[in-house]
């Protein structure tokens, strides 16, 4: 159920940056470790955005995998690797690296009608 909260938060950020303009698309970056599921966000989005300046805006997702970085050989590898073992050198000394956050990267808004120059 946390996608309801996160979608409310996405809408808030989007409307703030749109500053009253009509929003046609939203580009999101979703890290695997943020544990937010695209399909659930889509589902809540169509409901929550209704009646706002972002109604009907398309959501575009860029998914970043959750990764660890090996402290021995510097290899970045999936956090799902068994026992956090580096697939390259076998070390289990690693630190969390990528895919933690969820960002609104950019939005697309309708441009105002171009005013012909005098």
């Amino acid at each position, binding site marked *: *159920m*946390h996608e*309801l*909260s*996160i979608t409310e*938060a*996405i809408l*808030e*950020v*989007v409307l703030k*940056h*749109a500053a009253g303009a009509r929003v*046609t*698309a939203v580009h*999101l970056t979703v890290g695997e*470790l*943020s*544990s937010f599921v695209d399909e659930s966000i889509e589902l809540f989005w169509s409901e929550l955005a209704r009646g706002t300046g972002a109604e009907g805006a398309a959501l575009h997702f860029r998914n970043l995998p*959750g990764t*660890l970085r090996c402290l021995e050989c510097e290899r970045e590898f999936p*956090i799902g690797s*068994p*026992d*956090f073992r580096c697939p390259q050198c076998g070390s*289990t*000394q*690693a*630190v*969390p690296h990528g895919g*933690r*956050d*969820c*960002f*609104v*990267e*950019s*939005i*697309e*808004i*309708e*441009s105002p009608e*171009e005013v012909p120059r005098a």
Partner: protein
Amino acid sequence: MSTRIPVVEKVLSANDSVAAAIRALLDERGIYAINLMASPGAGKTSLIERTVAALKQEYGIGMINGDTSEAAFDAERSQRAGAHSVHVNTGGKCHLEAAMIRDALALLPLGEIRLLIIENVGNLVCPSSWQLGAHASVLIGSIPEGDDKPYKYPKMYSGVDALVINKIDLLPYVEFDMVRFRRGVETLNPGLVSFALSCRTGEGLEAWLGWLRSKLA
């Protein structure tokens, strides 16, 4: 024609701002707060009962108990143990959010509180994403959950400031490889302070209480 506007804003930045305001309020009032997180059944309420019983003579204690329903069992248990307590019904949400804490704080006698314990909703996924303004996030892992939990819930284990390993009295009866468990924790959260204890027998509780006292002194 459409125009693309760069935003690059964390989705939860609004929550983070509320959390920062809560932290400022707590600091101003001289309150130390912990955000207690765990899976359902790991022993959050048991640890709270033990902690409140041991510290209530020394410090005023406040509790905010988050639950997904109106059933206020946990708040009642905290109240009976001797804490000022507020029950927060998250309305089905699987975590507490900063705004819920802000509203709950308005219902507590802040002047009488030195330690605030926020009992988050039992869940190892969602609560890790929402900052609440607490000074320390504390995770309870328990022996029957298994030694694989750091590997399965890396975000939770990597984001906390202290770890309580509860139900160690069950170690003889449960397959639990402490070395594997601790190796996973160490990878995600190097140097994390941890307390192996049993809320049932009381073994190991002193170290936990000592750590809390050191924060309150």
